[in-house]
């Protein structure tokens, strides 16, 4: 591979040094890092001695793919992982040595790891009643699930930043300068966090925050555990160091002196995951521990025109813009829309241009991304539907609907309710008819409704022969009646105590996916039901350990109805190897770290660009290491944080664009309100920095 001289200093030379590599996104830092791994391998370093750390799984995929393709000996064996995964591995292996010191009430019993979805459930179980009883969070108008999420988020920050969880409320209150009601809310958040932590400890439940806490306090100080990592991995590479947390930075401070070599890759002007505890300033302080610093400043992703656009926008946003590119016309890399008044017009304009690029200009669909500050279901669905109409392949890391809203999932949940025969769980007639429509091939909603009306009695289904009216039998048809009977007879025989996930698997395999039934050879439905089975299984395994007498199936069904479970898909970037146009929130695309040729920025007028997510119970800046105790969070701070966020996202997007950006703008936003957010203003202001397109530059 062709490498610039500076890249060679990282990739080929200095293989026994600790190198701090920085530069803007798109300057070839990761490429240099991957090449360094290959050279280490060619130099005889065993792959089992090399570790690549990334802030999240998506960031590691380019590494894994490149290393799998490489012919370097053992390149596919190099481990690419996250701090969280390492922490869990250490905890599982060394639990017997540290359990007694963790504060867990059952040190002889194994630890249990609830995922994000189950943490929501646990939060509801452990603190939900207390919130009701004490009337916590009065006046906070966010959904209960988002409230739980922010309590979890506070605990995560305390662990990742490294302050005691008992200080969450005090820190938040100390920075608050508004009404005393809000200050009480921080007390409530503290009380809930403490309650949750105490409950986790009493049940050996290791949520992410406790995992990190134990890593800091018990595992890392334990020689066996620390040595397991530091003796095993002698060559450490860290990508996107600025997106990682103070916990990792602290560990590296101890680890780097023990390494044979290291490469710390720092993306200048990033810090996109600050709201998750990323700390670019802490990350930079590790530069002092390195033998050598290299800065890459020659762009490799952006074309001349995009670079000129980037320069103009950086100037507008008051960011370090460096010297202007010698060639390149910024305007040529930007497409403004024709005047669009309404949001659907903007979507049509976007999809029209995407279709032209794919069908007429023969651009590979995977080289196009459509981003927005947020990608709500309605926007995603509208884009997907229109792209389908134009025959443009697309992909998204979240589906258009939550798992529980998928028809096959709703049908399975309804049949599960029927099979449970439990009070309070009987589905309504409308749901039964819907489930029959989904489950039986060729069953239309009218016939399904007739069946439900005739055969759904007292929470259970009756056999088809119970329809005495020959005319009604004829309307439904005997063929559908026979299929209905197969379904009914299976449900009648299934034991009520069969765990729900096994019920879903069996009913799917033995009935719904068989010939004559609605999911026969429906491959996408298979994947959806598999997600449901995973969710129900994880719930069952956790709850039966917590409370062996709990009515697991009934509880699961109730949690789904309340939106606590099966409410979102977890993204799986690894499974997604499709080549379609990517639809994603801007932030998600940025963290995937893959440049594309064409970008469409939607809802450019939205105030979501450059505004913090509304999180009334937490605060990423105040809960960071850099916040002075007692200092108030002022409007000026909010403004500065917004400006930083806007610059990070907008300039970060440009650095990952090779050819052109299309701006999706409508006078009225999704909710019909006029929108003039900070990105739109910045783009207008930028005009003065752009050289006219027809000027000879």
């Amino acid at each position, binding site marked *: 591979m062709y490498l610039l001289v500076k890249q060679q200093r990282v990739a080929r030379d200095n293989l026994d040094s600790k190198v701090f590599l920085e530069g803007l996104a798109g300057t070839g830092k990761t490429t240099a890092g991957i090449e360094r791994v290959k050279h280490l391998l060619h130099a005889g370093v065993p792959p*089992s001695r090399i570790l690549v750390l990334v802030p999240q799984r998506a960031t590691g995929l380019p590494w894994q793919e490149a290393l799998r393709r490489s012919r370097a*000996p053992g390149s596919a*064996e190099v481990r690419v992982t996250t701090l969280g995964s390492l922490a*869990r591995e250490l905890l599982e292996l060394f639990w*017997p040595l540290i359990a007694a010191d963790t504060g867990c009430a059952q040190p*002889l019993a194994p630890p249990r790891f609830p995922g994000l979805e189950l943490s929501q459930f646990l939060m509801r179980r452990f603190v939900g009643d207390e919130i009701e009883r004490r009337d916590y969070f009065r006046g906070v108008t966010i959904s209960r699930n988002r409230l739980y999420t922010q309590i979890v988020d506070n605990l995560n920050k305390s662990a990742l930043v490294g302050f005691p969880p008992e200080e969450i409320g005090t820190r938040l209150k100390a920075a608050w300068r508004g009404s005393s009601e809000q200050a009480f809310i921080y007390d409530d958040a503290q009380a809930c966090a403490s309650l949750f932590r105490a409950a986790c400890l009493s049940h050996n439940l290791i949520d992410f925050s406790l995992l990190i806490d134990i890593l800091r306090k018990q595992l890392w100080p334990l020689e066996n555990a620390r040595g397991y990592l530091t003796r095993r991995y002698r060559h450490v590479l860290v990508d996107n160091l600025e997106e990682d947390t103070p916990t990792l930075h602290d560990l590296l401070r101890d680890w780097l002196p023990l390494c044979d070599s290291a490469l710390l890759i720092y993306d200048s002007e990033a810090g996109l995951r600050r709201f998750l505890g990323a700390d670019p300033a802490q990350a930079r302080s590790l530069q002092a521990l390195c033998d050598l610093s290299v800065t890459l400043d020659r762009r490799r992703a952006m074309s001349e025109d995009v670079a000129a656009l980037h320069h103009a926008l950086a100037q507008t946003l008051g960011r370090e813009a460096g010297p202007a590119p010698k060639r390149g016309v910024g305007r040529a890399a930007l497409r403004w829309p024709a005047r669009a008044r309404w949001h659907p017009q903007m979507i049509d304009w976007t999809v029209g241009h995407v279709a032209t690029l794919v069908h007429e200009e023969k651009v590979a669909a995977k080289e196009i991304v459509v981003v927005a500050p947020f990608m709500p279901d309605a926007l995603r669905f509208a884009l997907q539907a229109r792209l389908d109409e134009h025959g443009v392949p697309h992909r998204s890391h979240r589906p258009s609907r939550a798992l529980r809203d998928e028809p096959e999932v709703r049908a399975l949940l309804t049949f599960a309710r029927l099979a449970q025969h439990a009070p309070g769980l009987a589905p309504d007639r409308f749901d039964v008819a819907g489930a029959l429509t989904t489950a039986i091939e060729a069953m239309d909603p009218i016939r399904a409704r007739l069946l439900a009306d005739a055969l759904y009695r007292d929470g259970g289904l009756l056999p088809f022969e119970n329809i005495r009216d020959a005319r009604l039998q004829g309307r439904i048809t005997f063929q559908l009646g026979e299929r209905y009977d197969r379904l009914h007879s299976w449900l009648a025989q299934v034991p009520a105590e069969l765990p729900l996930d096994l019920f879903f*698997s069996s009913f799917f*395999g033995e009935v719904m*996916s068989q010939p004559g039934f609605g999911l026969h050879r429906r491959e996408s439905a*298979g994947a959806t039901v598999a997600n449901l089975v995973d969710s129900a299984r994880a719930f069952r395994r956790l709850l039966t350990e917590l409370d062996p007498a709990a009515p697991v199936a009934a509880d699961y069904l109730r949690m789904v109805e309340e939106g606590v479970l099966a409410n979102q898909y977890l993204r799986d970037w690894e499974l997604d190897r499709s080549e379609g146009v990517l639809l994603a929130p801007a932030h998600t695309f940025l963290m995937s770290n893959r440049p594309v040729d064409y970008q469409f920025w939607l809802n450019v007028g939205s105030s979501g660009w450059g505004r913090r997510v509304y999180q009334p119970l937490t605060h990423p800046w105040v809960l960071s290491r850099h916040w002075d105790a007692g200092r108030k969070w002022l409007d000026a701070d909010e403004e500065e944080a917004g400006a930083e966020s806007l610059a990070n996202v907008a300039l970060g997007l440009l650095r990952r664009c090779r050819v052109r950006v299309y701006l999706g703008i409508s006078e009225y936003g999704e909710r019909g309100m006029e929108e003039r957010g900070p990105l739109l203003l910045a783009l207008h202001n930028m005009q003065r920095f752009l050289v006219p397109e027809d000027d000879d530059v």
Partner: protein
Amino acid sequence: MNLPEDFVFTQGNLQDYVDCPRRFELKYLRRQRWPASEVDDMEAFERHLEQGALFHRLVQQSLLGLPPETLRPRIEDDEVARWYDAWLANGLADVPSQRWPELTLTAPLGKWLLLAKMDLVAIAPDGRALLLDWKTGRHMPRAVRQAQRLQTRVYRNVLAQAGARLNGGEAIDPERIEMRYWYAQHEGEVLRFPYDEEKYRADDRFLRGLAREIDRCEDFPLTDDERRCRFCVYRSLCGRGEKPGPLAEWEGDEDMALPTDALDIDELDEIAF
């Protein structure tokens, strides 16, 4: 050509192809998830897989130096405790002291890679290399059958190709390699499979041929042996029956991964949206 440039072969996906080319296509090329049951008694099956995972972790912990007196009192499952006792008694009998637990090795296979994840590799000072795999299944297969399993052929082949770094930079002579299966449910009985140059060459030809065949395969046919379909999750997708087979007759590989409820810590950014 069917296979992407970065495809990685394993004993598992090769065995799937040999057992049923359609299963290989669905599972690894189309990545089709199909959540039907493998066996009739899934609760017992799941319990068994959990026991297997727990036992493997205990062995790994022991090999990392955690003492039995720390580990043994924590084992709540009597059956796993028996396995562990048996392993303590003879699991490491005659195993050289230079050991690499949970070792992953890769070797080239045509344009692709062949990956083996081994429970334990041990090398003696005289260069003798022992490859160990802990088995927790009820069935102890006949040696003739186990010799033909892809695991036996792949692991020894990969160690011969890629084991140099465990052996002071010297390639490990196939004549010095032995693969040993240790059966927990059979009081630590073992099956031993020595290797030699002739077998190595035969395996090499066979594996390369198999990889080429998979890459060029135009149609991935269903297996002729329909008994296999009883234990395959894709049976309804392939029109090969409704009910899963009885657990007592299941002879699959218990090393298959448990469905994980792993902490989805890398997905934290979902929180904000």
